[in-house]
């Protein structure tokens, strides 16, 4: 009987730990109600149009392996020339459980760009190293730009 009581006390402690962990995870995931159209109109103002051009659904699939139909909204500005590394991607998720898979694909894209510029594109490599991936609830931002931090600020403000 003593053993049972000890086991149960341990189980209660474990359940409490899971509860605290869940609370912590959920409090960090605040879903934004900003519409994707509004977000898009704000982010477009910060796009470096000299170094990037708009990416359509096919380009998004090719460069990131993301299927646009799986997301509530997605916008991409990708390098306008092979010598440019600037990029801006904003994804509005349908469900936050897709967050990890999208971030993985963004990281893979970043790595593939780093490999492409390795050895000769020092400036582009620096930009890629300084690039930002920002996950805020149901929105994800990936930005490769000289003004990456100010673009992130605009993104966070728009949420």
């Amino acid at each position, binding site marked *: 009987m003593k053993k049972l009581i000890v086991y149960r006390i341990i189980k209660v402690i*474990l359940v409490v730990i899971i509860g605290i962990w869940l609370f912590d995870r959920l409090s960090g995931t605040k879903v934004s109600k900003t519409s994707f159209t509004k977000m898009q109109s704000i982010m477009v103002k910060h796009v470096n149009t000299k170094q990037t051009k708009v990416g359509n659904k096919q380009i998004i699939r090719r460069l990131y392996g993301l299927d646009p139909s799986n997301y509530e909204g997605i916008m991409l500005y990708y390098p306008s020339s092979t010598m440019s590394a600037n990029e801006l991607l904003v994804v509005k998720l349908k469900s936050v459980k897709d967050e990890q898979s999208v971030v993985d694909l963004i990281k893979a894209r970043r790595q593939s760009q780093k490999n492409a510029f390795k050895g000769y594109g020092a400036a582009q490599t620096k930009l890629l190293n300084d690039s930002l991936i920002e996950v805020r609830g149901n929105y994800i931002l990936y930005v490769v730009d000289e003004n990456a931090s100010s673009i992130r600020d605009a993104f966070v403000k728009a949420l």
Partner: protein
Amino acid sequence: MSFSTLSFIFAFLPMSLLLYLIVPKVLKKFILILISLIFYAWGDISNLLYLVIASLFIYMTGLELDVCFKEQKQKEKRIIFFGSVALIIGMLAFFKYAGFMSMPIGVSFFTFSLISYLADVYMKKAEVEHNIINYLLYVTYFPKLISGPIVQYHTFRKSLDSMQMTKIKFAHGCQQFILGLVKKVLIADVISKAFSSMSSIHSMSVLGSWLMVIFYALQLYFDFSGYSDMAIGLSYMFGMPMEDNFNEPYASQSISDFWRRWHISLGHFFRDYVYIPLGGNRCSTMRQIFNLTVVWLLTGIWHGNTICFLVWGLYHGFFIILEKFVYGKGLKKLHVFWRVIYTDFLVFIGWIFFFSPSIHKALDTIAHLFGHGVNGFTDTAFFYYFTSYFIVLLFAVLLCIPKIRELYRKSTYGDSVVTTYLSGLLYLGAFVLCLAYIVSSTYSSFLYFKF
């Protein structure tokens, strides 16, 4: 971390194998748990805590059940078992369906491992594990942790005592790992580009629609069976044999046969922990139909919370019930070719529910297959994709035919030393080719990671 990345193949795997090899025998299991936790944390450190805490919770439940067995507390035992299973299934449902947070990687497979342990103890298929190292190794063992195969506890426990690295097991493991890599990198990832591209075309022909569905069927098979082969291969490398998870499913001769060859470990899980405890087939016809419906409903729900997965599960259940009670005997009288055609036709139609975002879109795609709402029988898109992907399509289809694989096995592993060396060279060449593909392409995740 994914098995098909350079960091896994050239850093994580060799370092893990080396570490496991050089540590004293008494530390081997502990090291393997550590390796497994690092493997998990590499991909999803934020959810590692849940993995550890949930594992400990079920371990304590096992000990609780042990006390109840000894003190013959039948009612309490039942409450503890069902209460704990309900709790971890509740957590799984919360992660999968509530959508409040990102789902911990591999949570479905990991939860099934926990249920298997508890159910095996409850049903007395295995003893309660007092050694926490053995228990944690079963739960966290990295080859199966993220995406299966779902190894049942009693099977794992039996193999654990004889777990030992040997040259033969290592060679077999390498071979199976490379085979999985070929399936994933050279076939599934290539076909996925064709499927992804075709599925964004608005107007399709009949042949184009069929080609798209075939592309998906092949992609899913080579992606998931490729992953399973890699997982089994890795396990062999560490000296732990694992049963196959796929057995040429597109050569099945009925839907029931298909489910004995596709995701075998999931089928066994539902058979052993749901179907048989419900009464299996040792009961009335109506009860059997009910049992089968429950199993297929759960299979559908396990894959996702959309109505499409539910329909997909029940669709398979429906044909299994028909085969069992209505036309199974008649089906057996048909020539084997027609039985395979019958099975693949139904399975491929079923995959449409699997990949479609809504029932409406799934029904539209099915209608396209039969000429409704399409722009003709054939079009330039069909010819473009068919000719562009002809080689990989042919290679994939050939790999699905049992006789071709049998022929390959005989020709490469005959008694001759020459063929054995040639086979080794073939695997080495395939490995190098896979690496070239991995280096030159963007990382592509495994389809079953999302489940």
